[in-house]
């Protein structure tokens, strides 16, 4: 049993190692995404700094600082979750582009091990990017984390990542089923999640039907909890109302995402879509 788990972990690690090697070879693109992440996060922070000038409201330093941090937590947490979503959703499209999809699906690796390996690689990359973006933004904008509860924030981020993985795996199905337009469909899902999850604003300002969608998005709870932990120093007990729904979404979405993926793989094999070209 332990040997079997060890063997599966070894197989899953093959995908992590492969992704790290690919990141090194495509280093110029990694720099592009990093710069893009820094610039967009910084732009959002400057919107916060400029709020008094834009609205003509008070220039209360504490309030402005809180707004900047509020926006930064949203944008960087979203960057972290978004990277997980994008890389997982692109798993199939990328392998199709490289021409390796057939070989990967022929490999003697259980699909769950394959997808978990990809999740591991994705988490490493998303975490590295998010830390680098936060560090870079802190050079330009004062970031006050003196009240932050790092433990609660870390747990929320981890749970959020797990919860997002299920959604991302399910979205990776689109490029598997629709060889030409599937990736675009996955990006639409990502955009809708961004809109309804309260990345830049409280979800209470959304129209009623959007609030229903925000209710099922794991990002809603993660971002809300991260704000509580980093802005107000909420501990694990205090963030529990946001932690358990994210855990629940993860507990439902991962097995569901896996099942959807396995169904899509069977469908692709029936219809001849498991191939390098569209």
């Amino acid at each position, binding site marked *: 049993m332990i040997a079997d788990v060890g063997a599966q972990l070894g*197989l899953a690690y093959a995908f992590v190692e492969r992704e790290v*090697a690919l990141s090194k*070879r495509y280093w110029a693109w990694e720099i592009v995404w990093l710069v893009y992440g820094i610039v967009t996060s910084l732009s959002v922070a400057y919107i916060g700094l400029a709020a008094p000038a834009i609205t003509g409201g008070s220039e209360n330093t504490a309030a402005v600082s809180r707004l900047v941090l509020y926006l930064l937590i949203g944008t960087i947490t979203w960057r972290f979750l978004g990277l997980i979503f994008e890389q997982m959703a692109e798993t199939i499209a990328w392998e199709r582009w490289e021409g390796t999809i057939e070989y990967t699906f022929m490999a003697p690796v259980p699909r769950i091990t394959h997808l978990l390996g990809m999740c591991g690689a994705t988490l490493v990359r998303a975490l590295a990017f998010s830390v680098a973006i936060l560090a870079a933004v802190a050079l330009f904008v004062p970031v006050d984390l003196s009240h932050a509860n790092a433990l609660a924030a870390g747990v929320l981020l981890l749970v959020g990542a797990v919860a997002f993985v299920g959604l991302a795996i399910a979205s990776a199905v689109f490029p598997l089923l629709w060889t030409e337009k599937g990736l675009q469909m996955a990006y639409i899902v990502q955009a809708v999640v961004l809109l309804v999850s309260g990345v830049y604003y409280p979800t209470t300002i959304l129209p009623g039907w959007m609030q229903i969608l925000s209710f099922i998005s794991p990002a809603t709870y993660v971002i809300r909890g991260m704000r509580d932990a980093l802005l107000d120093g909420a501990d694990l007990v205090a963030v529990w109302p946001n932690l358990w729904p994210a855990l629940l979404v993860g507990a439902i979405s991962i097995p569901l995402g896996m099942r959807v993926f396995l169904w899509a793989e069977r469908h692709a*094999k029936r*219809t*001849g879509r498991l*191939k*390098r070209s569209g």
Partner: protein
Amino acid sequence: MAIQIRERIRTEKKTAALAACEVSKAFRPSRVVPVGGMTVRAVDAVSLSVWRGEIYGLLGANGSGKSTLIRLFSTLLTPEAGTVSIFGLDIGRDELAVKRLINRVSVEASFFKKLSAMENLVYAGRLCGVPPEESRAKVTSILRRLGIEDARMKEPLDKLSRGMQQKVAIARAFLTTPMLLLLDEPTTGLDIRSKREVQTFVRDLRDEHDATILLTTHDLDEAARLADRIGILHQGRLVAEGTPAELAARHGGTLEDVFMTLTGRRIEEGDEAGGPAE
């Protein structure tokens, strides 16, 4: 488990390496998005057996169903009707066990283009349970034998010629030592010298690793040179089968004459009813 299956196969000499019984596959236009097109019957009630240690050549014009058949045997497609077993294991029911026994080299080498030959092969080894340190030593020795210099082993694959890439694909088969190797037009587009080298490696693989080989080709000379038995596929149906000498005796003349007699056309001419997987 994988080792036990291999041991069982080695001792059971009578089981066919590959047994296909009345296998059919058709591709239908999408019911969801009506884009036109018609149902294409790519493989039509094909039955064939490949015996252990044999090189079986599958001859057919473009569009005759060769690649569809190979993709069915590779677990990349599911048959609509009929059964396929590899060393007695059903490709649907025992998919993972079957994947441990097979490898495929297709007309285009499936590799991560920016990774080196070494990185690609170590990754392939990991997926097949070969530890990286063991892979590295083996890869160096195999690639040297295939005439690839040490310096080129660390270059990105897209810097190597197609002939060299195909040798790396053959090296992958040497590394993972499959019991059944599926070669889908492995020499198409190669110059004469590379073609001969690849053909030599195919023979070596059979002789040194006790591998069984199914080779699809539209090169009559290659089929005659390599195959112990030949099957001729025409419009998805297996129209003849036998050793080159048997086919010549049965239908008269050269292998080209046999092909013309059975199909009514030259092998260079494509079949109209070819499947999309061709």
